[in-house]
């Protein structure tokens, strides 16, 4: 359905942006005194970004991974995602400062689902939201704490992170 794909940002550029995000995130967490954080990436693109941040911030615990397929608000309309994989959070969420990472923040619904899922694991002390791309089109009152780039797009345009070997941001148009 995509009529046209425009390449937006290359692998090197993205890594550079993520470096910048790591610095901003570190600063943010210090300012709020959120210590001993654990990180969770949202499948699939969020994980690729999270892996780099996880390494940059030298977080001890393994990276948590969540698949929001069962928490989507349109589950009953579209049915189960056939590519669903298990979520894996190997640390205790209770009373923990969590950093939640996604690739693209758009309507806010993915984050809503992710938050619901995290809260089914336990009660975190705080959640810091990090997104590589913040784009126009928010439908829920959700704001990121740290972003990489900000993009304004037409409603029919989409921005996607491809990877994981070579990370690329591409913009496509749906007719």
């Amino acid at each position, binding site marked *: 359905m995509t009529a046209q794909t425009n390449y937006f940002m290359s692998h090197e550029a993205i890594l550079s942006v993520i470096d910048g995000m790591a610095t901003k995130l570190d600063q943010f967490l210090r300012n709020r005194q959120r210590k001993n954080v654990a990180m969770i990436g949202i499948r699939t693109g969020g994980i690729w970004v999270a892996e780099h941040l996880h390494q940059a911030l030298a977080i001890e615990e393994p990276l948590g991974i969540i*698949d929001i*397929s*069962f*928490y989507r608000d349109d*589950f*009953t*309309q*579209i*049915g*189960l995602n*056939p590519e*669903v*994989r*298990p*979520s*894996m959070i190997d640390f205790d969420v*209770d009373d923990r400062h969590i950093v939640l990472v996604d690739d693209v923040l758009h309507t806010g619904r993915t984050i809503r689902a992710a938050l*619901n*899922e995290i*809260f*089914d*694991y*336990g009660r975190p002390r705080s959640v810091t939201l990090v997104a590589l791309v913040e784009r126009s089109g928010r439908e829920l009152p959700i704001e990121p704490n740290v972003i990489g780039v900000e993009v304004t797009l037409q409603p029919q345009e989409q921005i996607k992170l491809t990877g994981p070997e070579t990370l690329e941001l591409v913009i496509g148009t749906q007719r």
Partner: protein
Amino acid sequence: MSAANLQLDNNNKLRHFLSIEGLSREHLIRILDTAESFLNLSDRSVKKVPALRGKAVANLFFENSTRTRTTFELAAKRLSADVLNLNISTSATAKGESLLDTLRNLEAMHVDMFVIRHADSGAAHFFARHARPGVSIINAGDGQHAHPTQAMLDMFTIRQHKGDFPPLKVAIIGDILHSRVARSQILALNTLGVSEVRVVGPKTLLPMNTRESLGVHVFNDIEEGIAGVDVIIMLRLQKERMTGALLPSEHEFFQRYGLTESRLRLASPDAIVMHPGPINRGVEMETVVADGNQSVILHQVSYGIAIRMAILSMTMQPRGETS
């Protein structure tokens, strides 16, 4: 409409789950993969996902079964669905409603999914053929025909403990003739491409033309049948078999077909022992085998919930397109 076509919609996705027959290897693998997502739910403080919230699942059990019914109930509740339990003994239906009326009445109460267990082969297909569009039917066992969710949890167990399917030799031992579990297991094993499926039992408990109609190797001697196998599935022997001139006694069955420690040694050294339960200790197997370290019987039970959650969430029909 053939049994197979009934289960799949135009996009080749599951809309009912009636039998292993008609499902491709890809379908079966997808069910196993999806079940993985539910395995570690019990590690979380909230052991639920909201996937089927707002949906109603009715357990329509025309045959008694606490075990299967409770796992389906748990599975549905962990998907946040509302659950209705209807235990309808066959005598009640004989006096009262026809099956079709029961279905229609429940549909009128906006039940979205029916989990059905019935004594007649083909019962689940009957319900599926008459269900309103958007309503899904899950077969929890129909007569001697199929018990596909049990077969899937057995396949899941095998994959968890033995890895990939192609190299495996599997032996199913006991009353194959009357077993809907065995029929579904054989179909699943063959579809998943195991190296060999063997059935072992006395001639009275094996269907005629077994080899041709089911695609298995037939053994009447357990020692020959079990030699070198990687998976041993023991079937439950029901007391009624002793009165129908099918078997003389449980004693002789155990003598010739019971899984003892010494027989287990004839199988491959890391073979796993499975049983759909409940076990008749001293008839199908020795206690020491049932509780031994090659037995994965208790795991089967826990996998049962994950598999049923997978099947329920995959079969739930989306409300997307206006029908």
